[in-house]
């Protein structure tokens, strides 16, 4: 496999170029569209040469979209803010709940422990609508529908099992003797957890955090069902205003760009942890 002939090299580079084109071209093209006026976009044949405009972004940020049916007030930035609030608080809550639980599952063999962990994970993979269907009604009764708290709670379904299982794996990899040594030094259980277990599981926690943030950010169906306009994240918001009357295509493109930028930047910034998280803890980088 390591043999490198000249033709082999050429073929490899060609294949990789093709692959890169397939996976990156759409992102590139939509980025271009977001800087185009409707006239530029509708031009046939399409061209990558045009006078770039920031108009689409301006319209989105100001929340006033000009459309064929007049000016439409869509608070897209509000959607973006909702995404931030939902994803950040969901992940934060999951970390708060998930790390101690992951530690318990990793360190203590206790009755029901394995069952809880297993149920949580297997329900992570259950159809989300199955849970949402009755949950919407319960939420209504509890007054949680269309609230950040309700949504963040439901988001735990995506973020918590992920954090629990990935971090648990890392805790299990820490030698117990290191923690025992710290206890013997005169530190209580909680200090040991805080100063030894957590710092040592940091790569795992980082990977799980990043991954669950992305999952939370990208979630669509929970908010579709449980949130109204002022609580909607970008995933639902963007779809909603694409179908709203007379939006210009450049603005759609700009909204797409704005809604994916945070996750893309995060992924590029913390790629090492990303790869670690994506390999599901099965391969430690």
């Amino acid at each position, binding site marked *: 496999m390591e043999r490198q002939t000249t033709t082999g090299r050429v073929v490899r580079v060609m294949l990789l170029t093709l692959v890169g084109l397939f996976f990156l071209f759409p992102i590139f093209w939509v980025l271009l569209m977001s800087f185009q006026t409707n006239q530029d976009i509708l031009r046939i044949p399409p061209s990558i040469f045009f006078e770039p405009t920031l108009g689409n972004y301006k319209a989105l940020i100001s929340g006033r979209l*000009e459309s*064929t*049916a*007049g000016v*439409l007030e869509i608070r897209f930035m509000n959607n973006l803010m909702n995404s931030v609030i939902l994803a950040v608080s969901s992940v934060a809550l999951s970390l708060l709940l998930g790390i101690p639980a992951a530690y318990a599952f990793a360190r203590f063999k206790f009755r029901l422990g394995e069952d809880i962990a297993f149920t949580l994970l297997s329900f992570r993979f259950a159809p989300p609508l199955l849970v949402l269907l009755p949950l*919407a*009604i319960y*939420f*209504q*009764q509890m007054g949680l*529908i*269309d609230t950040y708290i309700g949504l963040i709670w439901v988001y735990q379904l995506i973020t918590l099992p992920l954090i629990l299982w990935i971090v648990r794996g890392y805790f299990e990899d820490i030698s117990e003797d290191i923690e025992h040594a710290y206890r013997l030094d005169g530190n209580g259980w909680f200090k040991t957890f805080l100063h030894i277990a957590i710092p040592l599981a940091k790569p795992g926690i980082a990977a799980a955090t990043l991954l669950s943030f992305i999952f939370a950010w990208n979630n669509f169906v929970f908010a*579709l*069902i449980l949130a*109204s*306009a*002022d609580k909607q994240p970008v995933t*639902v918001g963007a*779809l*909603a*205003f694409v*179908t*709203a*009357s*007379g939006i210009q295509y450049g603005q759609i493109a700009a909204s797409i760009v704005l809604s994916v930028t945070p996750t893309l930047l995060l992924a590029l910034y913390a790629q090492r942890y990303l790869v670690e998280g994506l390999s599901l803890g099965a391969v430690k980088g």
Partner: protein
Amino acid sequence: MYSRIQDLANAVVRRQLDRRNFLRRAGQLGIGASAATYFLNQAQSTALAQDFDWQKHNGTTIKLLLNKHPYADAMIANLETFKSMTGMDVTYDVFPEDVYFDKVTAELSSGGGNYDAFMTGAYQTWQYGPAGWLVDMNEFISDASLTNPNYNWDDILPNLRASTAWSGVPGAELGGEGAKQWAIPWGFELNSIAYNKRVFDEHNLTPPNNMAELMETAAKISTDVDGMYGVGVRGSRSWATIHPGFLSGYSNFNERDFTMENGQLMAAMATPGSKSFHADWVKMIQESGPRDWATYTWYQVGTDLGAGASGMIYDADILGYFMNGGENAEAGNLAYHAFAPNPEASAPTPNVWIWSLGMSNFSTQKEAAWLFMQWASGTDHALFGARDMDFVNPVRQSVWDDQAFQDRIAKSYPGYLEQYEASAPGSKIYFTPQPLFFNLTTEWASMLQQMVGNEVPVDEGLDQLAESVNRQLRQAGI
């Protein structure tokens, strides 16, 4: 000066002066538009309050669920009037149409009292009403202590009042015996042809007068006019594909969706007449419809007409109305034409869509909500909307009779009033009311998609559809 402006405002309230002239003369008095509006609102409030206690729910806040629509825009623009008149506050959520009805259904089906009133179509009430989510508005309309004496319910077009009332018995006549008024008509649309007059003139085309001409003209546009297809109709997998032009034409051939046999609803889509209409419709789309017809909602249909991508549309009249303004490429080039596809028919039979206001049964402040609804569907707001905003088509006869409204439409939308006059008598809801409306109509649209995609022959498809529809009716116990 204050007495002068108050006099002027009262003149407006007495309908001796129109709003525009009022503002002009206020300006001459050196009073700015916002201040003038304030005086106007005050005068209106005073006038109304003389007959009826609008202040009864002073301090109450009601919440509305609204669809993103010019009707809602017009209402929001005039909302201050209501607030100052009643001392109430009004908040609202606005959703785009694609998610709007899912949102309403989700909201109501979970028993939520978040919203007191909301926009709805008449078809939706066939689902919401029997489910117990709506209030029967008769209770309020007929209660003189709750309804202001100027409300004038009978001013609302009778077909529309009937179309929003139903007894809940599947197949029963709308507005018939035991009917409950599930919603208050607000604004409506009927279906006719809107066409690009510029292109028609250039190519010596005349608007079609029957189905054969429609197909012929559409095909001609597709072949003769560069970059333009013949006729725009909706095609998404939704009930919305069936209810505009399609059902209007279908009904013109005296075809029905259901018939009553031995007290049971039976699908009526598999008749020879239905099959032949479907075959024509499918052929028309294949030959001269939009390329990705199967994704078309009213929005794409309208945009294409406005942008000059289609030669005509057979859809809601107000869609053509909207496309004739704004920044549309073809603004000013559009014209309107009443349409009866059946050569033997005496008049058009447009199916109508009625944007209505419904009251949630879960609302805890129903009287306050009714105050809002009677204002929003009352004559004053309707006149304001029709004269100054795009609150068309109005549901009140008095508004249609209003000279200022007529003048405005005649001036900017040539042929629109004529189209309306010709279409109006035969326009009503042609669907048979039954609570499986959405399943069955969506399935109908889905079948239409399969026919257009040549996945299934028209005859066979309709036989399958009828069979499936009957099975579902029986399963639901209808």
